[in-house]
């Protein structure tokens, strides 16, 4: 069964009275355990698509079904809870809570899920260890490098035990080594723990590691093919 199913998805922005079709009829299925890159030029609609996939934006038309739930029909509060329980986010600019330590950032998601303190602290440390920064738990984001922050961001995304992780250009701000290390880590998690990763990216290094590449142009899927790593 597909973990994500998108049917005839449209998003029209009615900016300055000239309708802009950011997403123009996308149909897509993503199975559990995929390592998929959504690629496309700037303005192609991939970020808008990803936002609707993550329940951050509402489609103008069509359906987004995640694990059997039509998320576009959920009310705002339920949608937030749905995201908390089902979707992990990794952002281009890491976007950690700057006043919390790495461990607190990871544990915070579990606190929102009402996981007991002892359990969430234990799991936060385990996740930081699994992302290779177990020794940085008490550091605040400002004291970490970009690569280390993105690892914390991945640990945070994994904290809620989500159905899949949406990563919006996760390597855009990283140097080559950090990018390679991060991709190695995520690929390993995908392979060993069957965690589903969906990337939006321009980065050839990410595309090289993806097992499926979906290309979006002018709001439509122009190609959907296996990656070289498949």
């Amino acid at each position, binding site marked *: 069964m597909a973990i994500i199913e998108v049917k005839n998805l449209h998003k029209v922005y009615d900016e300055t009275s000239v309708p802009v079709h950011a997403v123009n009829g996308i149909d897509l299925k993503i199975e559990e355990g995929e390592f998929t890159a959504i690629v496309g030029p700037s303005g192609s609609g991939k970020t808008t698509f990803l936002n609707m996939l*993550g329940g951050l934006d509402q489609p103008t038309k069509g359906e987004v079904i995640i694990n059997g739930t039509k998320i576009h029909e959920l009310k705002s509060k339920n949608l*937030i809870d749905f995201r908390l329980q089902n979707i992990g*986010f990794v952002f281009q600019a890491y*976007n950690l809570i700057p006043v*919390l330590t790495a461990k607190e950032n990871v544990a915070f998601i579990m606190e929102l*899920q009402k996981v007991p303190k002892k359990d969430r602290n234990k799991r936060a440390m385990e996740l930081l260890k699994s992302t290779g920064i177990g020794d940085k738990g008490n550091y605040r984001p400002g004291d970490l490098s970009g690569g280390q922050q993105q690892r914390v961001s991945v640990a945070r995304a994994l904290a809620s035990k989500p159905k899949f992780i949406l990563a919006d250009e996760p390597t855009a701000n990283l140097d080559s080594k950090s990018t390679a290390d991060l991709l190695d880590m995520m690929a390993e998690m995908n392979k060993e723990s069957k965690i589903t990763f969906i990337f939006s990216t321009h980065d050839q290094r990410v595309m090289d590691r993806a097992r499926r590449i979906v290309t979006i142009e002018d709001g439509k899927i122009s190609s959907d093919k296996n990656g070289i790593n498949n």
Partner: protein
Amino acid sequence: MWTIIKIAWRNLWRNKRRTLITTASVFFAVLLALVMRSMQLGSYDNMVKNAVSFYTGYIQVHKAGYWEDKSINETFEFTQYVEDEIKSEPGITSVTPRLESFALASSGNYTKGSAIIGTDPEKEARFTNLDKFVIYGDYLKPGDDGLLVASKLAEYLKVDVGDSLVLFGQGYHGITAAGEYPVRGILDFPNPEMNKQTIYMGLKEAQYYYGAPNMLTSLAIMIHDPDKLQVKVQDLKKKLGKKYEVMDWKEMMPDLLQEIQADNAGGIFMLGILYVIIFFGILGTVMMMSMERKKEFAVMIAVGMRKGKLILMLFFETIIIGLMGVISGVVGGFPINLYFHFNPIRLGGKAAKAIEQFNVEPILPFSMDPQYFYNQGIVVLVMTLLAFLFPLIFIIRFNVIKGMRN
């Protein structure tokens, strides 16, 4: 919850300078408001205390209708019942019986209309410190048949201690009141009006002079706690019934009340300006704290934080700023007020003389009324909550996608 408070607290210190400046603005506003108002309210208390202890007392009991005419005919009998009822009221510290009316005072070729106050000399001395105003001669002794004459009146009538004064007037229910009395002492009041017309005599002598044995025009009452004035007035009204009128100093001295109210309005206006400064100081900070973190809020909501929790976090941030300012302001203001409460500022020169004319001691004691400290806290917290409306509306209307693009 604890994590939300922790994040809020740490967020405040992300921009230490801004938080400190905002807290300092609240601190100084609260400090200034406390000191300014404490001095103002303390001076009112002092004015009232002086005015009531000089003559009227906090409360007076008359025969119903006396105050309107102030006629010798509107007297009441000082019965055991009245005395017992008043004494049974807790919190009453002293009661002075008086019989007051007018008469012509004459000496040789000089005659002048005067206010005659018959009183119990011992009780009056305890009540108003009348004995302290004697500048020549002696104060009245119990059962004394002499008079105490105010200095300007004595000067006009050309009488001195040991001379005689003839009083002539209308007594109770139209009888003629006439008598010749020795002058025992000369009184000098700070109030020029009282100096021109006042004569004190023993209560029994006055009752005899006016032909009104055991009758009084007023019972002046002092109470321990002026804050319970209205309670005492109501209690006495209930106890004494409709035959008597029970009046507080506000009814008896409306001019003083108006003066206080007018001055107080000015103080409240200044306080209002301070509060507005506090409000905009907090609002500015809260606005900046909200606007500059749009992306952060967007991410928090994206990863699963409900808007309610985000609002709670901003609520704590706002309230902590307000509380820090209020608490530090109160802590700073308390010792200042305490010092000046026990060591009042003493006025000198013309200002002192102007105040003394109203029988008010020229000092500015600071009020230590705890209610005022609470009020400060409550008002600033209300200002803080008003300022919090901005982040509240901001988050309710917050759009995650727009925030992400920020």
